[in-house]
């Protein structure tokens, strides 16, 4: 996999910071987030872990405006998402990789990657394809540019999804359980790409159950439980020496497998 970084200058020029304070969210009767404060610095790789229902996916989705917080302030890339008028500014500047890939099945890999470039950034077809191919090369799928998603394995599809997000040159990349829908032997090719991105300095927020990835690649691990941030720290701190009892319980259960 080549680690080509197309526009390093452009990214450092944009502030990559996330700041959430007092975020609450409920779905019907269920209160999923009960007052979350969290910050992410430029270039940081933050991994959210926790049991299902702990609110980590909801938190991630709030950060890219796929869900709206009921209360609290959400600042992403200096855009106040809690201000409904300004929230749409965030789109196109952050990337999201979904558990179910959400690739457009009626378009080729290259088509997927270039759609937004053509329609939103209004690049010429030549420029869009060039950037698209570069992005695909970055995830190691240059030769699959003309394949349709149905013709690709799960790991390849997810990598195309990553390329699609990268092509927009985002300041922050969000990953919502990117490997949970993959067969075990395909997980590595995706986490490998994510690791390369991290090494290149991308700001990333990742929700995952892959503890190995969290341990090896995260700058900070955030353990969520019952709708709040229960504990956070470096991987060594959280995995090696968890302070809270529930953190220990969770890690014990998860690392058993």
């Amino acid at each position, binding site marked *: 996999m080549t680690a080509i970084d197309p526009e390093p200058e452009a990214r450092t020029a944009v502030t990559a910071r996330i700041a959430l304070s007092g975020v609450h969210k409920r779905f019907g009767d269920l209160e999923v987030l009960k007052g979350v404060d969290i910050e992410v610095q430029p270039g940081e790789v933050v991994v959210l872990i926790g049991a299902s229902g702990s609110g980590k996916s909801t938190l991630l989705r709030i950060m*890219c405006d*796929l869900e709206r917080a009921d209360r609290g302030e959400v600042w992403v890339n200096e855009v106040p998402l809690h201000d409904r008028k300004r929230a749409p500014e965030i*789109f196109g500047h952050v*990337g*999201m990789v979904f558990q179910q890939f959400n690739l457009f*099945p009626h378009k080729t890999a290259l088509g997927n990657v270039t759609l937004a470039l053509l329609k*939103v950034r209004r690049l010429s077809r030549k420029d869009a394809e060039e950037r698209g191919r570069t992005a695909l090369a970055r995830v190691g799928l240059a030769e699959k540019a003309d394949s349709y998603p149905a013709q690709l394995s799960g790991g390849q599809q997810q990598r195309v999804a990553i390329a699609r*997000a990268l092509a*927009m040159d985002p300041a922050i990349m969000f990953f919502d359980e990117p490997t949970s829908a993959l067969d075990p032997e395909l997980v590595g090719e995706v986490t490998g790409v994510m690791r390369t991105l991290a090494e290149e300095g991308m700001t990333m927020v990742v929700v995952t159950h892959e503890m190995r990835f969290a341990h090896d690649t995260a700058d900070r691990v955030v353990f969520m439980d019952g709708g709040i941030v229960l504990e956070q720290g470096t991987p060594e701190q959280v995995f090696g020496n968890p302070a809270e009892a529930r953190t220990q319980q969770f890690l014990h259960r998860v690392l058993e497998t």
Partner: protein
Amino acid sequence: MLSDWTYALQDWRTYLSAAELTFNLSLAAFALALALGLLGALARGSSHAVLRAPAACYVEVIRNTPVLLQMFVAFFALPSAGVHLSPVQAGVVALGVNVGAYLTEIFRAGIQAVPRGQREAARVLALGPARTFVHVVLPQALRNVYPAVVNQLVQIILGSSLLSAISVPELTGTATVINSQNLLTVEDFGIAAVLYLVMTNLVSLAAALIARLAFKPPLRTRVRPRTLNPLRRLVPARREA
């Protein structure tokens, strides 16, 4: 027996031109139905109740009354409201309005069948609601509904037989007239039946061909609606209730 068939087949030109009329007015009704179906689906999915309610009424009234009644209304009742349609016009309008209601539901289901994650991905890519609909949702919805839509054209061709009741000189009416003259029921209606089978099979074949040319990647479902699949699948029954 064979001489009966040869006798009946003497009128082959009449049958063929009647079949031609059947086919042409079916296409016209289909075009009308497509337009109404698309508009209806958009109206039903709209956020404005002013659009949603009439569309829902349209669908419910049409689907819960017989198409023959709708044809009679178009031909016999509309003149009282000042709208005078020829038999063929009334037939096209009635068939178009009728199938338009079914297509409304088909298009609506096709649009809803596009997974929510598609819209979310498009949203994060900053495509915006209009572009998301045109470039992400609609192409997938069209692929979803293609077999069902082709099926409706087949239904129109078969349903045009009822237009004989409002004196449209289409295939069934022609066969009936010829039959009253030569009394060769098996042969006359047999010829008509064969012509219907030929027309509907040609439509299915053409649709399959178009699908292969137009849809990249290829449509995985079978275009010829010969089977009724359980609920959520894409190849529907020949008739919708």
